[in-house]
């Protein structure tokens, strides 16, 4: 299925899953998932709700025990993790600066550097509970960057952001990848935005339906069965727009219909 040449993936894979099967209670959420992530590549996992995307990421960070299969991490692999949602109880006073020192204390210069990289440079003294959705995500990203990760993992990191906000966020991720040279593994609902920023897309629905370069996956019959055909044009559009600067507004005027990416409209 994959368009990636096999040897590049084996050469320097940071993490590789082999026949991963995960069950919640009696339900098999993932079955026989095999994939690997090479240094420096951006891999996006797409799939309908309940397709096991978050479970896959949680398995990779070690929060979910597999029923069968193996997860192999490169020795000493540094993983930066940006969780899907972080509810901070309002009774817990926490400045952004203090948050960055959890669990391991970091120096002020290192904290400032990470905040700058994540585009949250002026937020250090703010309370976590007082941040907007976009600011909060950037702070989470900054925290994930502290360990100088070889692999950055994002679970629906743009949930709750508007479309320009999430487009800007993904552009930042790409910038971070360029600066740090880390690989990125992320999950998203926002097919067009995400696919435009990826080197490789994995289409998941309990198992790996198809994977490869974004253009390849978008035209794969398995993908179309899940998401419809609407994203192809939008993908091209975002790719195009991507080469320009930050003016995300223009994408909206083309009216490509954001709704087409959702599974319930997939019937052809």
């Amino acid at each position: 299925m994959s368009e990636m040449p096999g040897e590049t993936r084996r050469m320097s894979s940071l993490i590789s899953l082999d026949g991963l099967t995960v069950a919640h209670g009696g339900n098999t959420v993932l079955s026989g998932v095999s994939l690997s992530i090479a240094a420096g590549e951006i891999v996006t996992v797409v799939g309908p709700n309940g397709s096991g995307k978050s479970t896959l990421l949680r398995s990779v960070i070690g929060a979910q025990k597999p029923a069968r299969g193996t997860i192999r991490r490169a020795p000493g692999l540094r993983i930066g993790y940006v969780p899907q949602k972080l509810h901070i109880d309002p009774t817990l006073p926490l400045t952004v600066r203090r948050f960055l020192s959890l669990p391991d204390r970091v120096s002020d210069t290192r904290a400032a550097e990470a905040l700058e990289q994540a585009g949250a440079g002026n937020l250090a003294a703010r309370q976590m509970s007082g941040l907007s959705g976009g600011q909060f995500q950037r702070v989470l990203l900054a925290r994930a960057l502290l360990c100088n990760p070889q692999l950055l993992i994002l679970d629906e990191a743009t949930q709750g952001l508007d479309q320009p906000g999430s487009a800007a966020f993904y552009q930042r991720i790409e910038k971070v990848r360029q600066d740090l040279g880390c690989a990125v593994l992320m999950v998203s609902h926002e097919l067009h935005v995400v696919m435009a920023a990826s080197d490789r897309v994995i289409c998941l629905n309990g198992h790996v339906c198809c994977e490869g370069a974004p253009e390849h996956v978008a035209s794969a019959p398995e993908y179309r069965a899940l998401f419809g055909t609407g994203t192809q044009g939008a993908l091209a559009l975002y790719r195009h727009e991507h080469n320009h600067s930050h003016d995300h507004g223009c994408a909206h005027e083309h009216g490509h219909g954001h709704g087409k990416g959702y599974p319930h409209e997939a019937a052809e």
Partner: protein
Amino acid sequence: MTLLDDFLIRAALAGIGVALAAAPLGCFVVWRRMAYFGDATAHASILGVALALSFDVSVFAGVLATALAMATTVSALAGRGYAMDTLLGVLAHSSLAFGLVAVSFLQGVRIDLMAYLFGDILAVGRADLAVIWGGAVLVLALLWWRWSALLTATLNPDLAHAAGIDPRREQMVLTIALALVVAVAIKVVGVLLIAAMLLIPAAAARPFAATPERMAVIAGLLGMLAATGGLQLAFVLDTPAGPSIVCLAAGLFAASSLAGLLLQRRRS
């Protein structure tokens, strides 16, 4: 050691010891919304008193064992069909009832039930003081050692996993600390009011704290103030000591909430 001959000095030292141990743990109880959990563990300890007296072992050991058993039972039963507050309500009140019934079976041993329900701080002896301070130091050391990991696990279990911290182990640390505090505090405020010593100083500290550490320190100071001031109040007004301590703590909470509101208004 003539100083310790004075029962009021011993009582004050006992109150300070309990306040010091309860404050930082109480912060976690507040942040993790474990108030009912603390209550259930404390209520179960009356059963521990009954068991300890009937098997002729130390009350401290009996209370510690039942509190631990209760806390692990709750953790094990959590997420198996009943909402947490229902489960805790059932366990807290039924263990209190079983404890009271068990105490009534104790023939020959005259025990002053009120002393265990509401504490008997004025009767604290040197051996009690040693147990209280030993337990308090143990709790503080435990929390100091695990502080960062505990905070991370409190924020988000997946975040903890990604940082190589097992959130279940941190939960266990809190459970042990809670059992210790209950065992230590039973002589001072009694099973019915232990949760108050955990919650009220921590809640009263919230408006004045910008970081978790500061909240714990302020809670400790407020707890000590409540313990010593409440004792004095009881002496002057000839009221029961344990409840007087909690009354003063509640007064501090009311004042701090008011001050918090005023602070907020001035800021906005």
